């Protein structure tokens, strides 16, 4: 009796061991499969990203040496402006302090490097940030970067919209005195899209995490009011 019970017990133990072994194998292989899926997903992401990047870019006329922005004026103090044409806070900033900055430039006290970054592509349905920035490169070629930039902020489309069409960008450019045909081929051909990407990437690399960012001789200016900018430029000139 007891030995038969012992045999039954032994058989049960063996069965249980086999079942456990089977479970362990199954767990191992499902885990391997899941990890493989995750790793492959990451690699796909990396290769998609690599495919999207372009290394070659041509900077428009009037760009600084690094090709990261358009230079306005030639004063001793450098004011770096990082702005996105779609960013409402940038428009406010231009309205508030644009005149002061213009004055500092015309007085010969500062030069502006304007970085038209494309940070907000997700907030338009047509990558307006990239298109408008690339168009500003075309305007720089025609020597009307400042006028075009002011006009773009004037006509700023709301976030979440389709933004201005390429035709509208060309109209605005022609309105500030650019040659319509040159501008049209430059904008439609996306000549400065790679440059925009370069400007945007270098701004990120410089830890510009938001727009507008204002730097005077490389230092962030927290107070972006006319008085604040004037004070920062005066302090930097000393």
């Amino acid at each position, binding site marked *: 009796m007891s030995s038969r019970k012992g045999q039954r017990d032994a058989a049960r133990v063996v069965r249980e061991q086999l079942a456990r072994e089977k479970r362990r194998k199954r767990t191992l292989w499902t885990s391997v499969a899941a990890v493989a899926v995750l790793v492959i997903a990451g690699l796909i*992401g990396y290769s*998609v990203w690599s495919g999207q990047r372009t290394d070659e870019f041509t900077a428009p006329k009037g760009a600084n040496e690094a090709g990261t922005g358009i230079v306005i004026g030639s004063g001793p103090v450098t004011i770096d402006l990082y702005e996105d044409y779609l960013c409402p806070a940038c428009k406010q900033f231009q309205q508030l302090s644009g005149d002061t900055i213009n004055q500092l430039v015309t007085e010969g006290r500062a030069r502006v490097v304007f970085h038209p970054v494309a940070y907000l592509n997700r907030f338009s349905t047509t990558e307006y940030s990239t298109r408008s920035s690339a168009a500003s490169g075309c305007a720089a070629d025609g020597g009307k970067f400042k006028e075009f930039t002011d006009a773009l902020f004037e006509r700023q489309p709301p976030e979440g919209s389709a933004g201005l069409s390429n035709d509208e960008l060309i109209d605005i450019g022609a309105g500030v005195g650019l040659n319509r045909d040159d501008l049209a081929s430059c904008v439609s051909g996306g000549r400065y899209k790679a440059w925009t990407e370069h400007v945007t990437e270098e701004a990120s690399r410089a830890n510009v*995490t938001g727009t507008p960012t204002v730097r005077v001789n490389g230092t962030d200016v927290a107070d972006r009011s006319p008085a604040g900018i004037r004070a920062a430029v005066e302090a930097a000139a000393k």
Partner: protein
Amino acid sequence: MNVTAARTRAIRWPVIRPWLGVAARLGLAAVWLIAGATKVGDLAASGRAVNAYQVMPYDLATTIGAALPFVELALGVILLLGLATRLAAGVSAALLVVFVTGIASAWIRGLAIDCGCFGSGGQLAAGQSPSYLPEILRDLGFLALAGFLLIWPRTPVSVDGWLAGDTRVEDDDE
């Protein structure tokens, strides 16, 4: 009174638990799918969001920023299917711990960024101030879902269950 209450609870828990597990699994899957989907359309912005934390070199940040949305989507799909649930929950928990640590460190260092959790490129909207505490609490909530699945990974309607042949095995492995 007390005895019946205790007994109904004892009966209820084994009945409810698998369905709580399904809810946790699908909830966590939805979190990852949404988080991945909002980032995948703009990988450059995803890289900027990672870089905004200023904890790693720019080039590494953009690489991670590009890979992360795809990993999140894959994790979402794996959880949705219920494949290797405990492993997926473990990876989820690990990622969430990294995110919470990142947000906390940005807070401590006084950075003014958006967490970029659901695709904002790390940039705060105009006039917006950082909301680190709600972001951390939200991630801790997700971490609780992952924790539930780490402890009780076996849920109904899952590939794991299907592979096991739906035998009522003890779900202390997987």
